[in-house]
């Protein structure tokens, strides 16, 4: 099992409060990385997340989405650009699984959050000349 898989598994098994604290620090750290490294880190992260069992995957992605929406606008932009570029690196299956669950959990958080997230993604994709993500609805 790769280092990233071990880390994600450890975070997924941790209690919610601890997972949130550790993942916040981790996402902030990734946001501060140079782009190439950030894309690689996020590719490793989403690959490892999609390898979790569904029971663990959903709460993990819910925590990640909650943290993402609470980051500063620069950090959000850095993470989302990295995430979109990482999507190409990991292949359609992993990218779509992660995207689908992310949108599902955002919807569960409320329509407002879902709109905020999709709007942000569209806006950032346009700004950086990336293809607009397909949200499947």
């Amino acid at each position, binding site marked *: *099992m790769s*280092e990233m898989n071990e880390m994600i598994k*450890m975070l997924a098994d941790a209690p919610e409060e601890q997972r949130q*604290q550790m993942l916040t*620090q*981790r996402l902030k750290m990734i946001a*501060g990385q140079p782009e190439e490294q950030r894309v690689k880190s996020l590719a490793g992260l989403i690959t490892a997340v999609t390898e979790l069992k569904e029971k663990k995957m959903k709460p993990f992605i819910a925590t990640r989405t909650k943290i993402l929406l609470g980051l500063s606008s620069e950090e959000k932009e850095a993470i989302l650009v990295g995430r979109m570029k990482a999507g190409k690196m990991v292949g359609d299956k992993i990218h779509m699984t992660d995207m689908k669950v992310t949108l599902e959990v955002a919807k569960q958080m409320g329509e407002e959050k879902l709109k905020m997230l999709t709007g942000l993604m569209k806006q950032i994709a346009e700004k950086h000349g990336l293809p607009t993500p397909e949200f499947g609805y």
Partner: protein
Amino acid sequence: MKRFLEIIPLLGLGFLKLGIGFAIVTIVKSIKSTGENATGSFKKAGLKLENNKAPFFAKSFPIMLIAGILSELVAAIIMIFWIIAGVNGNEYANHIYEIITVPIEGLGVALLIGGIAFGLTTIVLNLGIQVNELPKRLKALVKGEKDLEELQPKSLIPRWTKIVTITGMIVTGSALIPVAIIRAVHYAVNYSPTYETPVGLNALLWDTWIFLGIAILLFAISYWLLRIIKWLRRQRTQLGKTVEEIAEMEVPTIENPLKITTAVHSFATAGLMWMFIFFFVIAIYQAFQETLLGVVTLKMLIKPGRAISLALLFIGIGLALLTIVVNLNLTAFMLPSSFSNIVNAIKKDNTRVELSQASDKPLKLSPMKLFIGLLIGAFIVLLGTIPLAILRISYQFQGLTQSQLTVEHLIGPVVSTGVGLIFLMIGLFFSTIVGFVKARKTIISEGVESCVYYTIEKK
């Protein structure tokens, strides 16, 4: 049947020890590649760094683990021949197999536990280098210094703990050789087995000698674990100071050392002392068995005596492992935010990420279930000896020797179950540690790489 029942726990425990050993190999590999990745990144920034050569124990411990399990497998195979010889009534072969099996078993145990101890020594060395070098290199990177004072890796290994480890291995590995010699000589001279004779009691003495060796090794293991705790704590202190200096921000002081760390010293020392005292009680009994103390049924207390010592030592090890997981948890909290602040400082970005305050209840982060499992194991070990010893003594006073034998046969399986549970819990502790160490590798490797990238970009 009795011999067959001896093979299963022997092999089972051997494989559990091997599993723990391999978890340690994984931890060592992960810590080592953390250092290699970081060194590679620092070299890209022009830092002149020497590669340290791996010492003897670091190279040899995986070989010791393999040799240990192979010895136990060989002992188990010979034991099967021993059983066949017993069934066929071949007395000569029966005794030859018995003479050969016992010292090989001892050697296997010494290599397996010694391999684990040397694996921990390797962790202590690699972790020690990183704890001392990482802050120094980060500061040098930011200041643009190229030459760094070289670290003496030998100074990171406590000499006495190393001596105790080697002593424990020698005692454990050689303990059963005299038994084999006594048995061989006795059989050659008398053409009769050695049981229930004064020579048989000598074998009992040497049998306790191997437990003394195991106790010394477990004592050494406790101290290697304590050293790991010390390095993990120091890593957070040093990293905090580095963040303070580079990012020019206030960093909360870390929590005081956990009180249970003191308990590790107490349990380890009490366990070893108990085994020493016990060993000398047996030795005195041996010397005076025909005279002064011959009437005392000390023989009945041998197994409970050993069990108390091992239970104390294992509880100490469990507490140390618990503290290591807590420290790794706290490190996992601190590392990403520390690197974020250092990276921001290098980028000349004034954003600072607040580092979490010292936890007032750090034990909340510990895998208490695993420790409780270990305690239950220790309790089962004691259950398999003390109450049974009392029963045996009371039976003997009543002259019920047959009942005494029945009770005797219960001891082995019960103690093996307890020891098996203890090893299983220790194995689970180590697999938890593997997860944290791999996470640590990712964070440190990526963190250093970012620091180096932005330093080069700044130039």
